[in-house]
């Protein structure tokens, strides 16, 4: 088994709106064991005729043994949904929701500190493990293939960009994970690097970062002393103007350390191999695998 899942992992989907239903259906047809769904007011009904829907996460956990939660609840209600999952004993929570207020997320992070729970996201595409046909999120399964490369990124579409290049070159992935574009978020680059380092299926790691914050700097420190596998890193936003939010709430140049050039510099000195542009990721990996 690769990162984040084991043979007993069972998923519950919370929030069956338009996108939630569509994406849950995609996860299910890919092979993900979805044991239940939560949507207040629809308890007792079934999703796609087979998955029981509950009014609360607690009921869903008690009845179906769900231990991984996937959240599509709209931003104004996301804090409540995440905490409900934490309080119900869900071990791994993936929050896809975009646009959660920062102060809600600081409360979430403060609340889960020290608890036995992992949060991925928010504002992320979730993760996919091709070998196990397991997907918790929205990464298109058509583009992935099973193999040795672990992919981690702050951006959804750039994750896809990297995956497509790899798959087109005949290089598969062990797991692909998007950690999200928000400044306050759960699982970090460092957490993911640790998982990939410990995972036997992963031989090479691709890390795609961007401007803003210090996440890439923390990753660089970690790579230097803890990662033995090759890491190919790419940072986007080299041309972004200072002080303006580039789509992602976390992608904003606020000082020298937030600059792409600065992040590239520290990653380079940590021993990471730099792909100058996202278009080169596939070829750089191919060279290493030769």
């Amino acid at each position: 088994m690769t990162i984040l899942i084991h043979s007993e992992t069972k998923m519950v989907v919370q929030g069956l709106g338009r996108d939630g239903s569509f994406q849950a259906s995609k996860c299910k047809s890919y092979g993900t064991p979805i044991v239940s769904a939560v949507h207040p007011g629809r308890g007792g009904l079934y999703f796609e005729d087979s998955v029981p829907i509950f009014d609360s996460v607690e009921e869903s956990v008690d009845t179906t043994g769900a231990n991984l939660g996937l959240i599509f609840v709209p931003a104004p209600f996301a804090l409540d949904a995440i905490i409900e999952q934490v309080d119900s004993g869900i071990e791994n929570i993936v929050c896809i929701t975009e646009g959660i207020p920062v102060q809600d997320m600081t409360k979430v992070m403060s609340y889960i500190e020290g608890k036995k729970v992992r949060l991925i996201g928010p504002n992320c595409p979730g993760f996919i493990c091709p070998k196990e046909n397991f997907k918790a999120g929205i990464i298109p399964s058509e583009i992935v293939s099973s193999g040795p490369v672990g992919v981690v990124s702050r951006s959804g579409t750039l994750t896809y960009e990297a995956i497509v290049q790899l798959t087109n070159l005949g290089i598969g992935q062990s797991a692909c994970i998007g950690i999200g574009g928000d400044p306050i978020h759960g699982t970090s680059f460092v957490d993911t690097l640790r998982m990939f380092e410990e995972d036997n299926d992963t031989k090479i790691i691709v890390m795609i970062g961007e401007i803003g914050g210090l996440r890439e700097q923390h990753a660089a420190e970690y790579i230097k002393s803890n990662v033995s596998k090759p890491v190919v890193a790419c940072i986007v936003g080299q041309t972004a103007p200072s002080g303006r939010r580039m789509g992602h709430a976390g992608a904003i140049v606020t000082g020298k350390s937030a600059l792409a050039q600065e992040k590239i510099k520290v990653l380079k000195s940590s021993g990471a191999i730099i792909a100058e542009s996202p278009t080169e990721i596939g070829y750089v990996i191919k060279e290493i695998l030769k």
Partner: protein
Amino acid sequence: MQIHEFQAKNIFKEYGIPVPEGEIANNPQEAISVMEKLNSKVVVKAQVHSGGRGKVGGVKLAENSDDVFRFSSEMIGRKLVTNQTAGNGLPVNKVLIEKVTEIETELYLAVTMDYESGSPVVIISTEGGMEIETIAEKNPEKILKIFGDPLLELLPYKIRKLFEKLNIEPSLYKQFSSIILKVYKIFVEKDCSLIEINPLVISNEKFIALDAKISIEEDALFRQTKIQDLFDSTQIDPLELEALKYDLSYVKLYDGDVGCMVNGAGLAMATMDITVKAGTKPANFLDVGGSADQNKIKKAFEIITEDSDVKVILVNLFGGILRCDIAAQGIIEALKDKKEYPSIIGVFRGTNSEEAKRILTDSKIKLIFAEDLIDAAKKIKEIE
């Protein structure tokens, strides 16, 4: 979202933070009557969403009504260019007329979100009046910080410890701590991303917020309905305003000529980077979002074609939830009535991309297809 100084000061007043006596004026005549009412020398302050106003004539001291008339006539109706404004500056529609405050001590005070610790941080410095970036560079030891907590908020003992380091008259402690707590309260209750008072002054043994800057976090605006009403559409680029109406993530860049339309923030940044690698410059950042429909794509494309700086358009779409064929129809709609438009290079991948290419080829739109971004970069070069 930014608000004006006078609006920020109104919020301060609501929370009991002292500000100079004053009123807003929409024209020079009003400015004179405010001065008469205040019966004092006044400061005339241009209301624009930018700092650094003082250095470019946006803040002036008026001794008499002739001064106040002249200064406000000079400011109102003009555009103010500061070191922080982009393009050709921001229009001044109002001036704030305030009683002159005698300054004994100047402090810098701010509350912002510290993303590393995930807590609000109170920043204070005795070097008030200077820009915080300058203090950070020249006297970093003069910047003091205390951290709040998302659940416990700001504890008084931290303020006491902070006050001890500031070398301020001990009798002023109560006022000081009350101001810090109130600013913190505004920060939390109004979902701010920044509150800055520069300077916070001591005048006749009283603290007064001489300036006020408040920015509200965009993602929290849905629950800050009162703040939404303070939005001033004249203070942002007209194309950015148009984008905002359609929930498009767009940033106008003033020195490029390649218009970019992309889905996904990361991919949009990467697309900008690649135009630079190709020896050109992007005219904008534009992320249409993950689940854009035909109308949104049409609008996005119109915004790019309306930008007179744009000479080439680069469309880079990776269909996921977004369907490329629907996007293609949006582009066709946007160009339906246009006789002339810039050259377009299109990269379409993912969901229904082949269908998109067919639809666009069948339409009479002139569009050059590129395989991927590397190919697109080559083709931009050829055109320019």
